């Protein structure tokens, strides 16, 4: 089970925010391959639904991976998609996570984004490994959560 402690959450967010600033992206997101949003840069101006964005990105990466397998290519490392105004660059980390930069093509470009990701990539991998090690060494995190009192009836009109 993946979990983040407050200090880890902060470190991740700081790193992504730094990367976002240096690469002049609109936002940088860290997603797992199952489609969960793990962390994102502090980018108040980014207004799209980041949860849905994460799900679609993971689907997109999964489909492209299946495509490249079909073509006999073993691994997908990164992907680039663009709209008229924006570039979306995605890179796989440890075959478990997806790092995404969304940038305005007037403010940045693929070259800058890739160079800056390269700069922070090692730090990010290191941080993720530390988190994984901490998770493995813990017996149970969930006793700290009381799920008993979640009332699903309140969800519906």
């Amino acid at each position, binding site marked *: *089970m*993946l*979990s*983040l*402690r*407050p200090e*880890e*959450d*902060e470190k991740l967010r700081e790193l992504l925010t730094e990367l976002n600033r240096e690469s002049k992206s609109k936002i940088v997101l860290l997603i*797992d*391959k*199952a*489609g*969960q*949003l*793990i962390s994102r840069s502090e980018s108040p101006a980014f207004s799209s*639904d980041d*949860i*849905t964005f994460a*799900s*679609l990105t993971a*689907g997109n990466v*999964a*489909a492209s991976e*299946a495509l490249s397998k079909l073509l006999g290519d073993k691994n997908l490392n990164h992907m680039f998609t663009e709209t008229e105004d924006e570039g979306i660059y995605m890179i796989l980390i440890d075959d478990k996570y997806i790092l995404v930069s969304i940038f305005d093509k007037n403010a940045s470009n693929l070259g800058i984004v890739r160079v800056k990701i390269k700069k922070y990539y090692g730090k990010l991998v290191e941080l993720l490994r530390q988190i994984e090690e901490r998770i493995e060494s813990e017996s149970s*995190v*969930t*006793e*700290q*959560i*009381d*799920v008993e*009192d*979640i*009332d*699903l009836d*309140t*969800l*519906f*009109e």
Partner: protein
Amino acid sequence: MPFINFATKEINCKIVYYGPGLSGKTTNIKWIYDHIKPENKGEMITLATETERTLFFDFVPIEVSNVKGFKVRFHLYTTPGQIIYQASRKLILKGVDGVVFVADSQEERHDANLDTLDDMLENLKEYDIDIEDLPLVFQYNKRDLPNVLPVEVLRRDLNRWNRPDFEAVATKGIGVLETFKEISRQVLQKLKK
């Protein structure tokens, strides 16, 4: 695999509606989406073909806060039913925390139910997920149609693990909430272990 963030106090879980094509998976999650309070839901995504059949997946994010301050987010996914989308069905199962198997009760669709169940078992195996360990609910849908199999037959052939099961008419919302609540309950229960 649930994802817990202790900083933002969020728990994220993934629930997949699995079943043969046209059994009513999209109808289930659309009904849920339409009846959830606006403040508890995000954006629904459907990736459908022109014939409105699910091409890749449908997605609904649901949020529920509890008294102790943790927010639980359920991500509901449906799979495409057609044989040719075997690959996408497998992709969607990645990291799954709970499965709702939506069966089509009509007699002529029973072979499709069985084939899809086999396909699911195979995909779970490839992800090393033990079905004995997986939160799982069965739904026998389309009970309003004339040519349906008795529930006992569906139960015997599909629900081999004696999990909770429900009869449903998803187009009318019958059995939809019961199914969702049961799978959510199981997923949360498992979190505690």
